[in-house]
């Protein structure tokens, strides 16, 4: 069962001065499964926010089809919007009202009665430690508080799909960890979460599946573990006791040798095999080693390599 189905989504903008068409999103198709945390990664301007805007109808798509829990976002826009809560990248709030009033109106926009909305707002404000600020205006909140309020707003109507566009931007470390825990709890309750982030660590910690978008195209979409398994380039470092010339057998490894230190780059799946091979060659050549270490690759490095390779091609 899919929460969101995207088929052949295209969004192009026309730059009037240059009379040029730019594809912000160029024919992408993917599904987001019900109940998963979906990490949506990409460099600035890759098309993440545009895709989200097309899902939420903040942008009109050029072509393609988007279904939210089976509802077409254009033909059945009310049903589709009712399913989604969005905390956008740009923090925007009604400047005329207090925090509590903003949330009660937000509930009302989604069909909640005033009492219902007040109760829900109170619960969320207390949960996010903003209850004391309920009578404040937006300009009296710090950046982190505004970010929290944006998430509360998105959750007011108890959406089945929560889209968090850069949710931890401007949050301090403690708040970030708290939010991560909160996202996990929400997900455990069955809420589908779509997460775009610049903190790859965030996606690595939270996401079940990850899509990487670059220049409007999806360049990778897999289970997180599979991406790490398939694309990790681990680093084996072997420290020699003395500086010696390495035998030609070493050429079958992708290595670098300098100052008694051999650095071997290896795919994660071949790591043990290559380590054994290197140690065997050294032993046969009677080259003594002092120590060795293995550094695991992480999603951030994988992400950077993928984008770099894509941009070079």
């Amino acid at each position: 069962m899919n929460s969101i189905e995207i088929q052949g989504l295209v969004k192009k903008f026309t730059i009037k001065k240059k009379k040029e068409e730019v594809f912000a999103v160029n024919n992408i198709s993917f599904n987001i499964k019900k109940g998963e945390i979906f990490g949506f990664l990409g460099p600035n301007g890759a098309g993440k926010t545009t895709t989200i805007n097309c899902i939420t109808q903040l942008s009109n798509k050029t072509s393609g089809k988007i279904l939210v829990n089976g509802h077409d976002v254009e033909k059945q826009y009310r049903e589709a919007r009712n399913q989604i809560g969005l905390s956008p990248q740009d923090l925007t709030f009604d400047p005329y009202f207090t925090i509590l009033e903003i949330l009660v109106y937000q509930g009302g926009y989604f069909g909640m009665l005033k009492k219902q909305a007040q109760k829900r707002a109170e619960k969320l404000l207390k949960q996010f430690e903003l209850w004391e600020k309920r009578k404040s205006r937006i300009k009296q909140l710090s950046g982190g508080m505004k970010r929290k309020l944006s998430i509360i707003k998105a959750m007011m109507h108890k959406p089945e799909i929560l889209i968090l566009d850069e949710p931890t931007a401007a949050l301090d470390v403690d708040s970030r960890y708290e939010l991560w825990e909160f996202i996990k709890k929400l997900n455990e309750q069955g809420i589908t979460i779509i997460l775009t982030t610049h903190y790859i660590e965030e996606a690595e910690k939270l996401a079940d599946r990850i899509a990487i978008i670059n220049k409007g195209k999806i360049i990778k979409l897999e289970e997180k573990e599979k991406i790490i398994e398939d694309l990790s380039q681990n680093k084996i470092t072997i420290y020699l006791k003395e500086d010696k010339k390495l035998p030609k057998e070493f050429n079958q490894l992708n290595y670098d040798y300098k100052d008694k230190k051999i650095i071997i780059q290896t795919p994660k799946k071949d790591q043990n095999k290559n380590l054994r091979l290197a140690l065997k060659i050294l032993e046969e050549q009677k080259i003594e080693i002092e120590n060795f270490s293995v550094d695991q690759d992480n999603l951030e490095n994988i992400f950077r390599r993928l984008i770099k390779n894509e941009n070079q091609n």
Partner: protein
Amino acid sequence: MKTKTSDWIPFYTLFKREFLRFFKVPNNTIFPQLITVLFYFLIFGIAIGSRIKEVSGVSYFLFILPGLFVQLLINGSYSNPSGSLYVARNFGNITDILLAPISYIQFTLAYIFAGMLRGFFLGLGTIIIAMLFINVSIHHFWILIIYCLLISFVFACFGILVGLWAETWEQLNIFINFVVTPLTFLGGVFYTLDMVSGTIATITQFNPIFYMINGVRYGMIGVQDGNIYLGLIFLVIIASILFMITYKLIQKGYHLRT
């Protein structure tokens, strides 16, 4: 987990938000207009009016009341949606509405009705101020109400259109400063057609606001300077056309969605 959406709560919430917004900033939205009207009454109604003999069988004070009433009705109906939409687009909080399960027709009507209500509020304020000086009785209640509804509807639509179109605060005020205000003054607020001649008389005759003031004046004090029913037909046609344009633009997301 999901809360069921009632069809009309989103509409009612947006309408309420739009109407109450202007009470939050009364020094911008209520008092200046009413104080201006008070001065019009003091200067034109009392100081100058006392030296003018009756116009069309009523005192000059009473004669200018419907015109000033229409001026504030127009001002309120236009300013509420135009200002609110412009600010919401520029602050970005228009996304609250765009993300909500509110239909396009409800979106359009909530802004129109809230604008109309603000227009009526200011119009009522004008009558209350006038009642401090003179007795006001309504001559033809239903004609007055129908005219007021149509006028405020038309200018609330204009307000939405300009609020969607304007990219700067200056553009937002172009319509009210360079179109509505001159046409209101040249629409017979302070004079009847037979008091003027030449260019002013010609402009007045072709001025749609003249027919609006004429209709309200008839409904309020029983004095008319032109055909009441012609004005009504014109207003119904222009209201229908403007509503369709407004609704279509909101549905399309003109200057709302990228």
